[in-house]
């Protein structure tokens, strides 16, 4: 789907929501990892939340405050969820750093594709310029993440298998 976001206001509203939801989801995942005694992954997701929060602040700086919000279903995302959020359903209690970073990398790549698509389809030069800047930043993040990811060994194909059944939660 091609993104037709025609005004700078609408663009900033999208950029803000995309970054805000990324923070929200990373915070949620950090909490999940704490609950499941995975402090290393909790720290990783908290770090990502802090990075994305800087983007929220940056968008607010550009917009001169919090941009207007749309109804959740009126944002023009290409998927059911905003591009920089790890989709609901992709978490796993046996997640490892390699897998977590792969999910984060996919977020950055989706965000870059989103902004590039907006730039490509924008008539307004201000929207195009901003979108290109955001895309470049996401690309930079993706490159850094690839370096980070290379530090971890790729897990065995069936990393999620648990020989001991999950215990009851109550």
């Amino acid at each position, binding site marked *: 789907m091609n993104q037709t976001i025609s005004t700078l206001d609408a663009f900033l509203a999208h950029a803000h929501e995309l970054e805000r939801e990324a923070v929200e989801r990373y915070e949620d995942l950090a909490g999940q990892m704490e609950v499941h005694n995975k402090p290393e992954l909790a720290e990783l997701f908290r770090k990502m939340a802090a990075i994305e929060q800087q983007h929220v602040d940056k968008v607010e700086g550009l917009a001169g405050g919090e941009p*207007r*919000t749309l109804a959740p279903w009126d944002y023009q*995302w290409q998927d059911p*969820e905003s591009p920089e959020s790890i989709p609901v*359903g*992709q*978490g*796993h209690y046996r997640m490892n750093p390699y897998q977590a970073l792969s999910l984060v990398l996919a977020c950055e790549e989706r965000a870059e594709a989103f902004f590039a698509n907006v730039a490509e389809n924008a008539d307004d030069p201000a929207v195009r310029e901003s979108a290109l800047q955001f895309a470049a930043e996401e690309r930079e993040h993706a490159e850094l993440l690839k370096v980070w990811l290379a530090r971890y060994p790729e897990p065995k194909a069936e990393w999620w298998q648990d020989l001991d059944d999950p215990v*009851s939660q*109550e």
Partner: protein
Amino acid sequence: MNKAEPLVSRYSHEDYKSTVKPIWCPGCGHFGVETSLFRALAYLELPPEQVAIISGIGCSSRIPAYTQCYGFHGVHGRAPAVATGLKLARPELTVIVTSGDGDAFSIGGNHFIHACRRNVDMTLLVMDNEVYGMTKGQPSPTSPADWDSKIAPGGTGFSPFASLAVALASGANFIARGFSGDPNGVARLLVEAIQHPGFSFVQVLSPCVTYRPEERFWKKTVHPSSVESTNDPAVAGHRLLSDDGFTTGVFYVGNRPCYSATVDTSNHDLRAIEEDLAL
């Protein structure tokens, strides 16, 4: 949707989320439902203290602890009864029941039917994962007949409970289905359900990634309805009974009269109620 567009919403996720961290398994669909619920409440600009979230028992029923709204973590299957009493005593509150397929359709099946029939103005949100998640993976009334599990090798052999059709036949006034992997779509259904007068039933397909890992693929199975909702129960009934169970959208928006008698609580302070109970 009746709402004047604000420049900036007064509420966000943070206003509804409590500091209690969910103990759901990472990847559980219920996380998506929680997100949808908070987005719907924020869209409607409902102050947390004007919302009551009532639940039964199950992983899905843990939601009240995870919100800043008023909540009541009730007895297994009985949440609609608690919610009915609350709504009649405090009609100004937005009352939402959060439940699971076991809670709402198994032990709570009778309450479900009569809550639909009474048509009190509240919303029932059922997170349907076709399994009892909390008690470690037993088949529920919505499990497919041939779902092979340790407790029912080869499957139970029973037809799944057609919850939306039962809700329609029992008198619910708004009937919809969503998928937890589409939190914005579910938020929209919840907004419509809350706004619509009477008893609204929203079934959300919400994968249990631990005991039904194959449900992770529901994201490929669900498909949006290709037709508009109807206010004709016969049309809705035909659609629901011929549906594959994975169509999302609003099926029925009725105009059945809702039960609106309220309970006069003015002469009943807590002490008087306690004294009555002691007798």
